[in-house]
């Protein structure tokens, strides 16, 4: 099989999967088998491209020409590979977990639910492998739309209202800012000021800026439009959709936070920074410094808000917002190491956060508890779940021996590298302070949960309602991801090598 075929299949197989799932509506076991099979097959296809990418290959394939001169085309490069691998890898436990969760909670419209997942994953792979701005935008929007039925799955007033916020913010930002930026660049391209609409090493503005065809102000404006056009990166103040989406069933939350959606956001931020605007151009033009402050503020503010959330999933959601801004902060340093840290953090955060969500959903399924204050002593009844939760927590805080530590380390290295660039150093100091302070905050809002679960006694009312662990698919899935979180600290070669390739591409 040629790599070109593999790329198309990686997108086609989930689509085919959703068709099969739709057709096996009446036979739940067959339907679930298709779900799992699709997940494994998709991961296999994406993973089979890994050796080629590590060897420096960048296979590309053009699917069709949507608008003359603007094809829907794909190209695999290390950064996209990182995201595609993370998404497809985590989709496997996520599928398993969904099955346990949906059956355990007797949810309605399960077929619709299972149809939308592969659609979303196909969109995610499309984003990861997009070769040009248009393709990325297309799949960015299809990801939003295909996850919308998942977010509003419950179908009650609350879900519909949150669905409006979800769709409203994501589409408003993408249409008003990202699409404007894409079309602006397309217009510049028509006028010859921009070399290409494809993602290019070193960015596409080099000649335009040098010849004066693109003014630095427009360059900076476009960067701003892009950063805020990618609403999925949840930079404040366009982060509201993420807590709103917490009405969704937990597998969906895990999917949003760890597998596809927010990762798509930060991935796009890295991708356009590296391949459209160019790290060194942004650095030398000085048009992106504001991003450090915005990202830093988001990290701190979201952490502070998380501190006061009693709802477990809401707390996790705000934690995600702050963790995403770590990635953006890494990008905003505009150094090769910063980009590498950002890339690596996508992986690290995904593993940790999916574990945390799985654990939260497990608690809900087994004990029907949603608030942090209800969790007293639950660790003794659900040791696997809360054990995994603890591991995820450590990863979020960045304590060895879990993978979160590695990315934080890289990030600090990135700040140090940025220090070598002669300017006021104020931004770097700010970044360091943010990283240190937010680590404390992370510990502040996560450790009490672990403490409650394991060291506080069960309340009297809980004693009256005995329950055990969640169903086995749930426990299997969360154990798997917790193990990955641990394991990846010691053996993170694939991710590290890919991130290293990204770093080299930048530097």
């Amino acid at each position, binding site marked *: 099989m040629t790599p070109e075929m593999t790329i198309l299949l990686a997108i086609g197989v989930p689509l085919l999967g959703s068709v099969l799932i739709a057709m096996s509506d009446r036979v739940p076991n067959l339907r679930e088998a298709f779900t799992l099979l699709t997940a494994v097959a998709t991961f296999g296809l994406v993973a089979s491209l890994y050796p080629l990418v590590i060897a420096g290959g960048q296979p590309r394939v053009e699917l069709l020409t*949507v608008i003359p001169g603007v094809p829907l085309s794909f190209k695999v490069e290390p950064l996209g590979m990182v995201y595609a691998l993370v998404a497809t890898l985590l989709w496997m436990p996520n599928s398993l977990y969904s099955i346990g969760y949906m059956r355990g909670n007797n949810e309605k419209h399960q077929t619709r639910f299972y149809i939308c997942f592969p659609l979303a994953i196909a969109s995610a792979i499309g984003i990861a492998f997009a070769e040009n701005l248009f393709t990325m935008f297309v799949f960015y929007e299809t990801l939003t739309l295909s996850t919308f039925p998942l977010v509003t799955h419950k179908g009650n007033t609350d879900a519909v209202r949150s669905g409006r916020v979800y769709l409203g913010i994501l589409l408003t930002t993408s249409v008003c800012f990202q699409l404007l930026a894409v079309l602006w660049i*397309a217009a510049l391209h028509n006028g010859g000021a921009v070399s290409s609409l494809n993602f290019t090493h070193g960015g596409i503005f080099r000649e335009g800026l040098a010849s004066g065809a693109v003014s630095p102000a427009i360059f900076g404006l476009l960067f701003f439009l892009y950063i805020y056009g990618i609403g999925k990166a949840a930079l404040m103040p366009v982060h509201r959709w993420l807590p709103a989406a917490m009405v969704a069933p937990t597998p969906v939350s895990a999917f949003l936070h760890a597998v596809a959606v927010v990762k798509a956001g930060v991935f796009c931020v890295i991708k356009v920074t590296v391949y459209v605007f160019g790290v060194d151009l942004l650095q030398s033009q000085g048009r992106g410094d504001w991003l450090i402050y915005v990202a830093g503020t988001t990290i701190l503010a979201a952490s502070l808000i998380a501190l006061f959330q009693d709802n477990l999933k809401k707390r996790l959601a705000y934690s995600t917002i702050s963790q995403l801004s770590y990635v953006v902060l890494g990008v905003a340093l505009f150094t090769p190491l910063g980009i590498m840290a950002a890339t690596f953090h996508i992986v690290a955060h995904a593993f940790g956060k999916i574990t945390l969500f799985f654990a939260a959903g497990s608690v809900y399924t087994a004990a029907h508890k949603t608030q942090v204050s209800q969790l007293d002593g639950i660790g003794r009844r659900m040791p696997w779940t809360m054990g995994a939760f603890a591991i995820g927590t450590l990863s979020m805080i960045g304590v060895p021996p879990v993978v979160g530590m590695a990315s934080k380390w890289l990030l600090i290295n990135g700040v140090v590298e940025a220090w070598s660039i002669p300017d006021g150093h104020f931004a770097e100091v700010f970044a360091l302070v943010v990283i240190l302070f937010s680590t404390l905050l992370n510990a502040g809002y996560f450790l009490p949960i672990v403490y409650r679960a394991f060291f506080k006694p069960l309340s009297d009312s809980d004693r009256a309602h005995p329950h055990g662990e969640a169903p086995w698919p749930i426990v299997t899935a969360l154990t798997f991801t917790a193990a990955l979180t641990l394991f990846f600290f010691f053996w993170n070669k694939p991710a590290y090598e890919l991130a290293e390739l990204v770093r080299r591409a930048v530097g």
Partner: protein
Amino acid sequence: MERIHQNLPALIVVLPLCMGLITSIIGRRGLGWWLAMGTASAVLAMAVQLLVNVLESGTLTVTYQMGSWPAPFGIVYVVDPLNAGVLTIVALIGAIVTLYARKSIASEMDPRRLHFFYALWLFCMTGLLGITITGDAFNLYVLLEISSLSTYTLVALGRQRNRRALTAAINYLVLGSIGATFYLLGIAYLYMVTGSLNIADIQHILATKVFPTWGTDAPMYRTTVYVGFALMAVGLSLKLALFPLHGWLPNAYTYAPSSVSALLASTATKVGAYAFIRVIFTLVGTGFAYRMLHTDVVLMVSAGAAILVGSWMAFRQTSLKKLLAYSSIGQIGYITLGFALGNVNGLTASIIHLFNHALTKGGMFMALGVVAYRLGNTRLQDVQGLGRKLPFTMAAFTAGGLGLIGVPLTAGFVSKWYLVTACIEAGRYEMAAIVLVGSLIALLYVWKVVEAIYFGKRPENVPGVKEAPLTMLVPTLLLAGASIYFGIDASTSARVATAAAHFLLGVTP
């Protein structure tokens, strides 16, 4: 066969005319539909053949002399990439909606008078096709009136469902006639200056004799051409329902029979837009209309207001047909904005949006027609929870809605791509912003309906509904599918539109 081939430009207009007459005589007991359907299919085949002929001919034009009188003495029919494209749109939509109309109209009017309906239907197509193909300014007026008169009557046929169709029709008639009369007066002024009615001839005389003497010794001419152009512009704006001259449109679309709404929404205003483009780009030229008179500014202000106000009014409606009607006003704003920009991409956007919006809106009106057919009504509360009862129809409606928003991989996105790019190229950033804000408002009104369809609860105590009959469902899905297909692979539509834009602006690609 060879003779048919030679006479295609005339046949495409004469055939529906004759068949309309024959239908009114012998079209009783269901025969009317067969005649109309046969004619519409033949017209579609001819339109496609003409399009191919035009694109393959070296000069990109096919000319036909009525009665062998050469231009400028006789009436000529001229087909170039622009009107070949518009012809194809009209013929395509006409054929599909005719297929759909059979069941739909049978439930909406007296079955004994159906043959008149199909006769009027074919006259309406005659007029629309004729406006598009003719190369004679006065002939255009006559055909405009043929299509309008049959349209007024078709709208009035909605009286059985709701008597407001009658007031809507008379309102439309008054405004439409005023528009046509303005256009007629405009031609008179141009005729005074040029002594010709042939569009190409007028253009030639204006360009070689009138415009070069500008400001020298013939100041009288200037005012005359100004006034003539202004009158034509106002008249055509009325026909096109350009904001703020759109007053007739919402009620006419709302109260007309379902199939008539679908036909009108996807062809009538499109043909008006075509005529406007023809007047600006061929008849007087952009140099006069835009650079000298600054009509583009007026058009842009109107278009911007149409986009914002039309979309916002759409959001406020609870009658779904009215919602779509107001949305059409907004979409006409996009079309107008495109040709007001005057650059290649803008014109391409305009032409491609004529096509894309025809597909999208036609499909949506047809989906609503199914709702009316099954439920007798198209209020927002009637479609609550219909997603599970009418899955295919509602999917078609949703697909159309996504197209109106301009979601990627729908036809609407392709238009928006060209339009916003053109705005930025022309340095009209505020217009680019308005287009994008417009699509957000479109999101609001479409989502309002989509939420009702998929999340609403069916009211208790209502009888169950079945999916649409096949003859209604197939055309609806066909148009909805086409609006998706031409969003995924726009190379054909973009090729024609770009060819037309290049042709009109005299740019070699």
